[in-house]
């Protein structure tokens, strides 16, 4: 069974604003019947102010599709159309206290329905701009089509490349066989053969051009940019030490001992790798663990 948040369950069992909205003047129909989701979003928009006076939905879909639809209508009611268009799928997921990675597409569908409804109101034609593939990386919710397109567009040739460009495979690494299959397929298109042993060491060999101090400051800045997200979940992070490629951190508050700690650290590591342009490893400081243990006594 999916590990749905209480908020998701609550919105599924008692959906808000479901059913047909009489007098709707902005209607967005989106869906992917293959994947078992279809959503109609109906809005009543004030023609003077362009504010959304009422919103209702009808959804054919799973628990999280129905909950995402319900959440979307709650979020956008009272907003102006322009404000509503800024609502991202992450906002919908956050409103529901998160969705399992396999279910993030449900929140994407909500955002697309909104775009379709606004386009309908403004007399424009809305076109879906992405195709969805089978989920490959469960840690970071990345599907096969995104990986394929990235490999094709950037001439990638190794699993490491794919991790650096898409994050896919950067977590538990269970999906590396699938990523290799995608590489084999796309590289064959351009007449190359995938070689799993062609280890790309460029990044590692390249010495860091920053001084130690600059580098540590840079790491702190990056952590600073992540901090608000952690604090929103009542957690925090602090930099303990930097030893070559190993960055020691302390997870604080709700983050410490959280079941998602490993995933969070992987995400932070991916961000640091991306921004520093070098491979680094983020490790929870053992000193921190001792301190925590001491607190519990």
């Amino acid at each position, binding site marked *: 069974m999916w590990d749905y948040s209480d908020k998701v369950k609550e919105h599924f069992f008692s959906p808000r604003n479901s059913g047909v909205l009489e007098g709707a003047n902005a209607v967005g*129909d989106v869906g992917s019947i*293959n994947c*078992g989701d279809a959503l109609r979003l109906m809005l009543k928009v004030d023609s003077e102010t362009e504010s959304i006076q009422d919103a209702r939905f009808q*959804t*054919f*879909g*799973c628990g999280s599709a129905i909950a995402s639809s319900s959440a979307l209508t709650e979020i956008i009611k009272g907003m102006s159309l322009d404000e509503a268009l800024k609502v991202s799928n992450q906002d919908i997921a956050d409103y529901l206290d998160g969705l399992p990675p396999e279910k993030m597409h449900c929140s994407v569908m909500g955002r697309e329905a909104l775009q379709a409804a606004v386009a309908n109101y403004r007399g424009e034609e809305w076109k879906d701009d992405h195709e969805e593939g089978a989920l490959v990386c469960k840690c970071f919710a990345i599907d096969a089509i995104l990986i394929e397109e990235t490999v094709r567009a950037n001439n990638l040739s190794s699993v490491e490349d794919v991790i650096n460009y898409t994050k896919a495979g950067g977590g538990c690494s269970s999906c590396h066989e699938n990523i290799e299959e995608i590489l084999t397929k796309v590289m064959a298109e351009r007449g190359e053969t995938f070689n799993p042993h062609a280890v790309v060491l460029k990044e590692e060999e390249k010495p860091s051009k920053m001084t130690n101090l600059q580098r540590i400051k840079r790491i702190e800045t990056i952590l600073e940019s992540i901090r608000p997200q952690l604090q929103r979940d009542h957690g925090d992070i602090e930099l303990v030490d930097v030893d070559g490629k190993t960055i020691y951190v302390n997870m604080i508050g709700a983050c410490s001992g959280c079941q998602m700690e490993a995933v969070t650290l992987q995400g932070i590591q991916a961000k640091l790798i991306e921004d520093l342009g070098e491979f680094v490893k983020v490790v929870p400081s053992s000193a921190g663990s001792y301190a925590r243990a001491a607190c519990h006594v």
Partner: protein
Amino acid sequence: MDGIYFDNNATTRVDDAVVAAMLPFFTEQFGNPSSMHSFGNKVGLALKKARMQVQELLGAEHDSEIIFTSCGTESDSTAILSALKANPERKEIITTTIEHPAVLALCEHLEKEGYKVHYLKVDNKGRLDLDEYAKLLTPQVAVVSVMWANNETGTLFPVERMAEMAHAAGIPFHTDAVQAVGKVPIDLKNSKIDMLSLSGHKLHAPKGVGVLYLRRGVRFRPLLRGGHQERGRRAGTENATSIIGLGLACEQAMQHMEYENTEVKRLRDKLEAGILAQVPRAFATGDVGNRLPNTSNIAFEFIEGEAILLLLNKFGIAASSGSACTSGSLEPSHVMRAMGIPYTAAHGTIRFSLSRYSTEAEVDRVIQVVPEIVAQLRKLSPYWGETGPAEEPDKAFAPVYA
């Protein structure tokens, strides 16, 4: 735990007597059956008994034809890979489009290694075309692997007939009988089936134990090599407690075979008829006249399976669904798609699978709850109007497909 468990094709409750039979072998008679001392000897004797209990249920001629494994999947892999290794010059495999992933995913992998796999298609009731099958039985085929009963619909395949056809063409025949063993009578000594897989946890034995039946004389190459366990055909210290549990579970399945095919079947039929009588736009999938006695798979049009399961779960009712969303994949069940069930129904399929523990009161309760749940979800569905499906649902709701 209170609740109505109608998901016995997924796994079953271990019978109390089975647990009791297993317990002494954890702490008192814990020896290694391969050992010379009496600690081991008693376990060895208990395994011998279990082997005979399994032999009895399968109607196998010899107890040495029973090889204990860790699960149905291991048995399937062992059987298919053994046949390929034993016939290295043969590069083709015959199976069906609606096998369990234990066979399908292996076959897809073997395709990448250069094997040609023929997937037999099914019709809208999930039935095979034996003429198509007959044409594929050529000397290039290393093995045929066809399930005895489908896990989603319960539809039975004519494996005995198919084994005879394969035998006549000199091709080894394997059947994944994980869903069939314990629910339908099996008599292997009077069949031409060469290999059969079963899984303990589908018949009230624990998880983590399975069996590969290997007819005497069938050429065999082990998957795991090592010690002499299972006469060198499956190395690794025996999962003694679970094997002993499986033995008793097989004996009990034998005793309940008639009950399964009369009383359990009656409850299943009552459940299905009760739901279909009250819910419009719903139908039973598969070959309803020729299926396992405990399984009913119902497609509810215009609503999605995971949503149904979540609401059923709220009422304490456990079932399963062929919807894409329950697995995290994008496609609904390959079995439903192979039968040509349209997407709007395939996503709304629910499988109820009963057992000898299921009661009349439970069936009555599910018949009462399901129509409410379906109505509640249809009210949310853009494909559903006030009282029935939106007229011409395709036109009423034509989304921009992602």
